[in-house]
């Protein structure tokens, strides 16, 4: 009897506990009033993202949503349901918090990473060579069930293709991510891809991106100044067809 009562009460309360349209409007209103271009907007948990974008999507350019990571953003606005937190705000303390029903709006401030070179943006200056299917290009795609704007290369099975940036301006660190794009290619073929990064001919990073690895981070300390940076994408294995190796990288000061 107690279980039945409990179940009835909880079930009846579920709909009542959901954020209302008014809760969303109120939270979004504060963001609209105070948000400046270049400030990141995120939602937590990730499944409320469609609602968040419905209310604030006009303040969220594709480049923001399909970011490599959040490091370059000095201000982060987070709308969260209950106690959820976005991974991008991990370890940060909010400078402002306000509640709207079950939604909590938080604003965070921090020192942003200073980007010296965004390799995705500079792809037009790159030389592409090697064994690939089609041509390497910048795409907006799904990697690890997240959106990313990245350079996509599809090497032939067991082959490599290179994307070379001559005289790229570097800072003190090169940070990047790589993964295999498109869930349906990851289901049908299980072989991984690999990305190798060299600077002036010296290997500084090598990452294997498996079908379940998502968006994999790599980083290397660098010397500031111009350098030749080469990204080599490999489809690992004789059966590794349609490995859509998608990567993004930034040289940071």
């Amino acid at each position: 009897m107690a279980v039945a009562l409990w179940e009835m009460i909880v079930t009846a309360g579920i709909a009542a506990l959901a954020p209302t349209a008014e809760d969303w409007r109120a939270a979004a209103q504060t963001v609209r009033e105070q948000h400046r271009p270049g400030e990141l907007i995120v939602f937590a948990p990730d499944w409320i993202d469609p609602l968040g974008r419905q209310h604030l999507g006009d303040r969220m350019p594709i480049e923001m949503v399909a970011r490599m990571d959040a490091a370059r953003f000095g201000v982060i606005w987070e709308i969260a349901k209950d106690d959820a937190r976005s991974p991008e705000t991990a370890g940060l303390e909010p400078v402002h918090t306000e509640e709207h029903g079950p939604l909590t709006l938080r604003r965070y401030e921090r020192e942003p990473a200073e980007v010296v070179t965004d390799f995705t943006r500079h792809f037009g200056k790159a030389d592409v060579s090697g064994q690939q299917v089609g041509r390497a290009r910048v795409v907006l795609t799904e990697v690890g069930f997240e959106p990313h704007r990245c350079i996509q290369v599809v090497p032939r099975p067991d082959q490599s293709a290179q994307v070379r940036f001559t005289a790229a301006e570097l800072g003190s660190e090169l940070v990047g991510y790589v993964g295999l794009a498109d869930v349906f290619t990851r289901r049908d073929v299980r072989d991984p891809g690999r990305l190798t990064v060299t600077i002036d001919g010296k290997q500084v990073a090598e990452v294997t991106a498996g079908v379940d690895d998502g968006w994999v981070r790599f980083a290397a300390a660098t010397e500031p100044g111009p350098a030749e940076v080469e990204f080599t994408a490999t489809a690992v294995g004789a059966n590794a067809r349609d490995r859509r190796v998608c990567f993004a990288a930034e040289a940071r000061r």
Partner: protein
Amino acid sequence: MTDRLRQLAAWFRALDRTVRRRVTALVLALVSASSIFATQHDVGIARDEMVYIGYGKSYARWWIDLVTFEDGVTSKKRITDTFGGDAPTAGNREHPPLMKTLLGLSRILLADKLELTDPVSASRAATALMYAAAVVMLFLFGTHVWSYGVGLLAALLLLFLPRGYFHAQLATFDAPVVTMWLATLFAYYKALGSKRWSIGLCIVFGLALATKHNALMLPGVIGVHYAYLCWRKGGQLAADGAGLGARLGWTVRAIVHVQPWVIVALALGPLVLIAVWPWLWFDTVSHIRDWIGFHLDHVHYNFEYLGENFNHPPFPWHVVFVTTLLTVPVVTLVGAVMGSVSLVKRAIEGTSVQADRAPGLLMVLSAAVSMGVFLLPSTPIFGAEKHWAPAIPTLCLLTGIAVVQASTRCSDLLTQMRWAPPSSASFIRMGVAAALGGMVVTASLGETVTAHPHGLSHYNALAGGAPGGADLGMNRQFWGTSARGVLDFVGQFAPAKGEEPVPVYSHDAQPAWNKYPKLGLLPPGLPDAGRETAGIAKSHIALVIHERHFNRHDYLIWDRYGTVQPSFVLTHHGVPLVSVYLRENLRGKAEAESPSE
């Protein structure tokens, strides 16, 4: 008031048992069928339904032509054109024909001939009736073996099962296979006491095979149960103190003593399958091999479970337990545990009901076999709990047993503590049973009502409802039925007469999309735009029906539409189910807010 209730209780108890049982069965049938049929209008059309409804009409037409002696109906060409073909899914030959045929007959009768309803609803009426039959069968079995109260509770808990109710509203096979699975078990149970029922078992088992391939597991249930009965009979036949070898020998001999005709019935059941599936009338072995092989080699659809996307074996062994734990009403789960303990206790004490036929063991084996196969890492999990739906009636029955037992104990306690006179004992017992059973059924009903019409997005109170399911990273939905909820919003962009159509990228609702205008649920002029990037490119409106692996469709739309902002988001208790994006020229017209349900 109390006197009136007493009189009502006395009248009820005085009713002839058979009359009471039959009236209750009739009421259950009517309530089940009518409620399911009435509510199915709210449920969008599932992707698979379009296939089954389409083939259902041609299957039914074939049978009508057969009984009206149309020329050439039994020719290989006509059978192949209707039921089969070279491709693995030609004629939908990867699924057996019974339900498709019934869907088709229902549609021809209710929609085409009598024009009582639309073709989709007419087809779904067949499923509603099948599930109502399952509810009634469980009632009759529970009543026959245990008590009226057990049977009634079990039946109501089967009806008010959020996911089961959802599937009962669709023109698919998942609810009907529960019916045929139960029918086979009950026919077997009856056959243990009556040789004549073996004929019924043969027919019903064959029809179960003709419903869905889950039925292939039924011999596993019946075989183990029969082996147990033979073991027990062997013990009776063997001399006292006989060793294991002797006992085994007598067990084997007992096969012909218990009811050997059930073995014959199971062996002949496949002949019934062949009889009702014309595609098997020639090249029988290879066609059966193709049918079973299709499912053994089935493509693995993407399916989110506990935050991970699974599309390739190995699959976690605990999917069957966790999914059941989070989708079946909590009262039914708790009741099932209590009922199991009660059954085990009675077995140990030697006081089990109808012990010679071990009905409790039969139902437990039913659940164990239908769920057990999902412990294998290679077994697909993409259909969630519908894969092991035949297991759930066991949980309902166990809960019925637990509640009735608890009611009896409670009312005995009240009488012992002299809170009620001994003369009122039966009245008290009925009252307590009604109160306890009423609360349990109400809790289950509440979950079912809350789930409607998005049953696949529903998770129980233990999970925290749909939001809890989303937090846990459980599968949001499949089949595209939730698109029904955005039709009003999309409909406002219908072109005026003479204007150009407004193509819609309908995503996972694509097979059903062009059906909605025919049902009057969407204005004309909003045709489906096609698939994938080509469809998105052509579209002016784009839907994403949210599942984790469908995130890619949001991004494809962003790339083409130049915005990440949906104009409308359908939610279920705050959980996004469908996003609708508009091209820039239409955004100004958007008016509606995303409603909370």
